[in-house]
């Protein structure tokens, strides 16, 4: 059973370890809308990061635009002007195929060239489709093909395991 508080603690510990190991001073944290922002808000507070949290909406960078079109709920991304040379901690809720992260990296690099990007996710599940992986995770799980993880929040944050109808 996935317990949200344990996962948040694990992710915080993992990020702390990386910050120390890589001697990251003044990192910039960015959350991916929507679930990633909820997790990032928690991490931002717990890790005492000074600079305001950056918000990333990857809708315009998705690789499935030609299938699903424009997301009508798209919100502007809010990133600081200076991405160039920064150490970025990118946060998402669930890492699955890797496509969201590819889109996020493409968008971030359009704002400038960061020094490094570290990826932290609450849950990594199996099913990668491109060669990317997170640097630290709250938990790694293996699911059946018809199972999906959904996060609800921001208050309270909760994890749900859903069964997807194969015909859908």
């Amino acid at each position: 059973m996935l317990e949200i508080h344990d996962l948040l603690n694990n992710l915080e510990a993992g990020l702390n370890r990386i910050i120390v190991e890589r001697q990251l001073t003044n990192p910039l944290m960015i959350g991916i809308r929507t679930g990633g922002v909820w997790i990032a808000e928690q991490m931002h507070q717990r890790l005492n990061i000074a600079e305001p949290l950056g918000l990333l909406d990857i809708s315009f960078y998705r690789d499935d635009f030609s299938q699903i079109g424009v997301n009508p709920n798209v919100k502007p991304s809010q990133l600081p002007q200076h991405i160039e040379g920064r150490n970025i901690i990118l946060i998402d809720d669930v890492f699955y195929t890797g496509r969201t992260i590819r889109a996020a990296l493409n968008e971030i690099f359009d704002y400038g060239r960061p020094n490094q990007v570290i990826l932290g996710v609450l849950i990594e599940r199996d099913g990668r489709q491109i060669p990317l992986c997170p640097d630290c995770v709250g938990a790694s799980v293996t699911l059946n093909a018809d199972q999906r993880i959904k996060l609800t929040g921001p208050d309270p944050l909760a994890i749900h395991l859903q069964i997807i109808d194969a015909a859908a």
Partner: protein
Amino acid sequence: MANNLQLNAEGKLKHFLTIEGLEKGLLTEILDVAESFIGMNDQQIKKVPLLRGKTIVNLFFENSTRTRTTFELAAKRLSADVLSMSISTSSTSKGESLLDTIRNLEAMFVDMFVVRHAISGAAHFIAQQTAPHISVINAGDGQHAHPTQAMLDMFTIRQIKQDFSNLKVAIIGDILHSRVARSQIQALNTLGVAEVRVIAPKTLLPAHVESLGVNVSHSLTAGLKDIDVIIMLRLQKERMTSALLPSESEYFKCFGLTEDKLKIAKPDAIVMHPGPINRGVEIDSKVADGPQSVILKQVSNGIAIRMAIMAMAMQKQGVV
């Protein structure tokens, strides 16, 4: 009819030809998507990959600077390949028909036409005739409609005033010849403003103008009272075939927006103009360049709104 043509089976935008028949929800969605594109101005690389590999042709049968360049920039920021054609200088002057021009461009695997034409209904005609996978955007047709201009104006109004429901909006000047005014009136009423007021001499108003859902005033000083948004229109000299006005200076005296007249409107009223402006004819330079003017903001917003409309019209249509 126009309605059906603009939307696909799922009710999503396919062509953008006129505001008429589009619902508030869709107009609001366009404004919301455009809002997100405004954020792109902070990016070092001002481009998103949405329309990569798509080809957009700007077909301008009539002169334009602002509209053509902002459409071109919008297409480029969406990563589309864009071709801008001024048709008066190309094949049609050699006698090629409109339909033949379209067929030839279709044969070059085009995905979207952006059309400006002096004849009302030209964009509609192309949308009806063109191949089913192609989207058509109306960039101004005759005296009929200029829907992307109206949407960028709505966007600018929302940016500053936030909510439409309490707004009183005055549209001033040459309503008779203005496709912009027609589209603005439809958009303002669909979005639910408190009042749309047109202010013009009788000779510059279409017959039965009230049926468009506006109040009418023939006096600028009386009409500007309580107004939140002032939209000035250009005096379209090139369209004025009959003697509708005594003289330009006479017009300025009665209907030109000066600092004194501006004081009659609400103190936080904004001044808009679709451009190009005739300084000293419909608007005084002090007002056009003054603190209440948002004319250049309108130009900037034209890029984001056109990006939103092009992206939405290019999303996958129907067939899975």
